[in-house]
């Protein structure tokens, strides 16, 4: 999942203060922080890349989202104090 910021200043402040980090994301998803496998800041696109392992392989029986396209809603609950 990617979070892309509109404002470079906001992105830089968030990065500087590490406001979006594995603990914050894990809390939004009600999971342990260890399940956030990757979280990095990509300055050229003012973006944060988040990687989380799937519960079920794509398209395996019982999967709920083959493309993994609709798992982002909990990110919208994250509030930042800027």
């Amino acid at each position, binding site marked *: 999942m*990617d979070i*892309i910021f509109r404002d470079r200043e906001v992105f830089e402040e968030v990065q500087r203060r590490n406001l979006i980090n594995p603990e914050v994301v894990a809390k*939004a*998803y*009600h*999971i342990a922080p260890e399940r956030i496998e*990757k979280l*990095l800041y*990509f300055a*050229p*696109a*003012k*973006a944060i*890349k988040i*990687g989380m*392992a799937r*519960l*079920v*392989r*794509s*398209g*395996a*029986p*019982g*999967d*709920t*989202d*083959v*493309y993994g396209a*609709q*798992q982002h*809603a*909990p990110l919208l609950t994250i509030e930042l104090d800027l």
Partner: protein
Amino acid sequence: MAKEYRILSPTAILGYGFPEESFMRGIAEHPDLIAVDAGSTDPGPYYLGAGKSFTDRTGVKGDLRFMLVQGIKNHIPVVIGTAGGSGARPHVEWCRKIIEEIAAEENLHFRMGIVYADVDKEVVVNAIEKGELISLDDQPIPTPEQVRECPYVVAQMGPEPLNHLIEEGCEVILAGRCYDPVCFAARPMQEGYDRALATHMGKILECAAIAATPGSGSDCALGILKEDSFILQALSPERKFTAQSTAAHTLYEKSDPYHLPGPGGSLDLTGVSFTELGDGRVEVRGTKFVPTPKYAVKLEGSRCVGYRTVSIAGTHDPILIASIEKVAQQVKDRVTNLLLHDDLQGEVFFHIYGKNGVMGNLETMEMGKPHEICVVMEVLSDTQEHANTICSLTRSTFLHYGYEGRISTAGNLAFPFSPSDIPMGAAYDFCLYHLLEVDDPSALFSDEIVEIGK
């Protein structure tokens, strides 16, 4: 090598279509190559396992017709990568047939090179037994039995296997499973252009106008590769490439935007700059290629894990909705019991939309009080007949189940369709998504050259 190499990318996936005006604007730019990525593993394991295309034949033929007619008429080579959606032999044959039809209908004559990505399963088994298969993302190593259960196993080829076909004067190259940028990068690399820049440009061009703004996977893009940079250009007046849209595209489908691994090595984007040229075009420079000590290709394979039948129904009863999770479990338990009596094996999954259909166990929200929900019953069993039987049992049990507090007894579920149960055929699961190291980048990939329309 010439100062520039121009590549026209008509669409993000062959078959998605594109506006004729955009394509012809691209042709007017005198491209040196028309190339398209024809496949993906995004749609899941079914298409590779079943040997079928996820793209529609009419759409694919329509797109190819434009590419081949303009390509051959204007002496512009054409390259198609990951043919037929998954790039195994049946997918390549499927696409070849479409090309032959177009050639006959349009009276086109050309030399076509075909390169296959199918890997001998015993080569993979051998690597497993020697402990040489490399896991990605902690995926378990498959057993030899599981590998042999995959109807098709492919390896993502790098640019090297296409060189021979380029040297032999193939005007059209039809390739099986490729590392996505390869269908764009192979030809300019053969002419001496930088591997890192060609590959990076290919990574963006494979998505056509998705990296432009507003983005679109069914609109064309032009890439201009130079000695130490490349330029991206939209071919529709309402779209343009910006530094932001191009940089943001680096995030797409990648777990690390700074290091993009591929056959032979990785792209290092730590020093990349994206510069707007002020006319809706962006120039990219600074990509580096870091070779791996040993050349590795990524294998893909999916195996049949059973047969599936589904039933779709809704419910609007507030008492049932309030206790849906409990009732679903009770239905499952009742079905499991009945199956034991009949010695039938199967798995039952409920997808409850309105509760947690999309996120499953990852859902964080409470259901609340929706006035309706949708229950999709998914059954997996060893044969289609057994899946049908178990689905029928599950569906009728659910429909008539006397759950606690029930008031309306006419039927618990609203079916939109008659028949209510839908046999879905074979179900597959990816079991190969691993790296295989090779001494020769081309050894795994066989090819042939055919004269079309002659």
